[in-house]
């Protein structure tokens, strides 16, 4: 049964439209606090580092390293039942922020994954008006 269409899809909010629209074009736009120079993920209405400060959107390369991973064997929602086992991960962008994602193009075995390994972005069109940002080994 193809239950892919029933996967939870993000409902972009006003402050995250730019992020999700960017992914559709194969671009990663992240917020940066102008006064502290720090990046933040996910997009917010204000800087987490200086609430009076300005934020700007910066296009980044998506170069990243693996921060942690887990290999999902029991689907956490029925819509993922055709996908198990798959790799959940948190990755650290070169610019600093940590992003939740999946690692693709690797057999889902802990032996194939090393925390700290270099990653590059993969843009996955869901066919439902949303492009997801996944990663694979660089």
């Amino acid at each position, binding site marked *: 049964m193809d239950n892919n269409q029933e996967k939870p899809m993000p409902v972009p909010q006003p402050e995250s439209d730019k992020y999700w629209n960017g992914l559709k074009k194969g671009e990663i736009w992240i917020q940066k606090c102008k006064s502290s120079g720090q990046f933040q993920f996910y997009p917010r209405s204000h800087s987490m580092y200086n609430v009076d400060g300005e934020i700007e959107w910066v296009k980044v390369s998506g170069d990243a390293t693996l921060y942690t991973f887990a290999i999902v064997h029991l689907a956490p929602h029925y819509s993922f039942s055709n996908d198990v086992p798959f790799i959940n991960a948190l990755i650290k962008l070169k610019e600093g922020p*940590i992003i939740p994602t999946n690692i693709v193009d690797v057999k889902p075995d802990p032996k194939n994954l090393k925390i700290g390994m270099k990653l590059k972005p993969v843009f996955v069109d869901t066919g439902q008006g949303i492009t997801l940002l996944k990663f694979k080994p660089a």
Partner: protein
Amino acid sequence: MANFKRLKNLSGKASIVGVDESNEIGKVPDKSPLALHAEAAINALDDAGMELSDVDGLFTAGWSTLDVAEYIGLQPKYTDSTSVGGSSFVIHVAHALAAIAAGYCEVALITHGQSGRSDRAPVPKDPGIPMVQYEYPYGIIGPPASYSLACSRYMYEYGEDKTRQAMSEIAVSTRKWANLNPKAYFYEKTMNFDDYHNSKWISWPFHLLDCCLVTDAGAAIVITTPERAKNCRKSGVSILGAGEGHDHSMISQMPDLTQAFGKVTGPQALKMAGIHHKDLDLTMIYDSFTYTVLVSLENLGFCKPGEGADFVANQRTSPSGEFPLNTNGGGLSYTHPGMYGIFALVEAVRQLRGEGGERQVPQCNLVLAHGTGGLLSSTSTVILGNA
């Protein structure tokens, strides 16, 4: 910043006088979650020698107190639906202490009921919230997926084999306690190390036997003034210290994956109570996963970061060990409907009263109970003692 001068004044200003579960726990498909709330509430009031009409403060999580009060038939003058995951009920104890000491209410009722196994109407999450927007689409959904990401990082920092050994020690020792608790889901089912290692993967690094149960159950707690406690059916248990807080909601926003907020709430609760770790007779730690126990022991200051494996080695936390931990069999082997925190408190009170039966900890006078909620997001610690 917590004002310890005022907190120390608050220490002991309220007592737990009633605790109980719903009539049945485990598989209870013929009762709704609200029915489990009501049943547990009536049982706990009976344990205290009180009636529904005595209650003037209501605390619950997962549900609004509006719905719970209406269903049970209460008109509370103090209401608190603080809902930050399974730690919420531990937080409610602290809130009830403050409310009673301030004079807002005199008899506080904390209720919980959840049909984790049999619910006919589970509530979907708002698709606009950040967790659903940024984690759910990737399948980072729910506690096993999220806690396993934290555990994997812990293994990277402190060693996979050592961590795995610790997780197996916790699973096996907790089951041994459950084998002494007739109310435990796994009362009659033993577990050895091979069972642990051979259990299927849920979300690597978690085996099935790293994960808590999913059951149907209710529980409730009654708290009142020390004065009124004297007229209750059983002697009251004093609320001596408390701490609460949270530092993220979804797992990818956790500031340090190997350190939960217990590092703040544990020391605060101990300091408020004016006691040290060595004074404790029993520790009750919310065990959503074996890993949660390991990291909580470190966060609470029983040992240093990375030393949890040595702390639990050689079945030290089992009935034959020197550090009694989760004597009811925990969320891993006794019951876990979804938000377990209240059950850790129920067991703490039973042990302090000497009602532990076969699993009774000798001379149990001071207990630390610690809840973790959400995705390692919130914690609350309380110190309970015999007056």
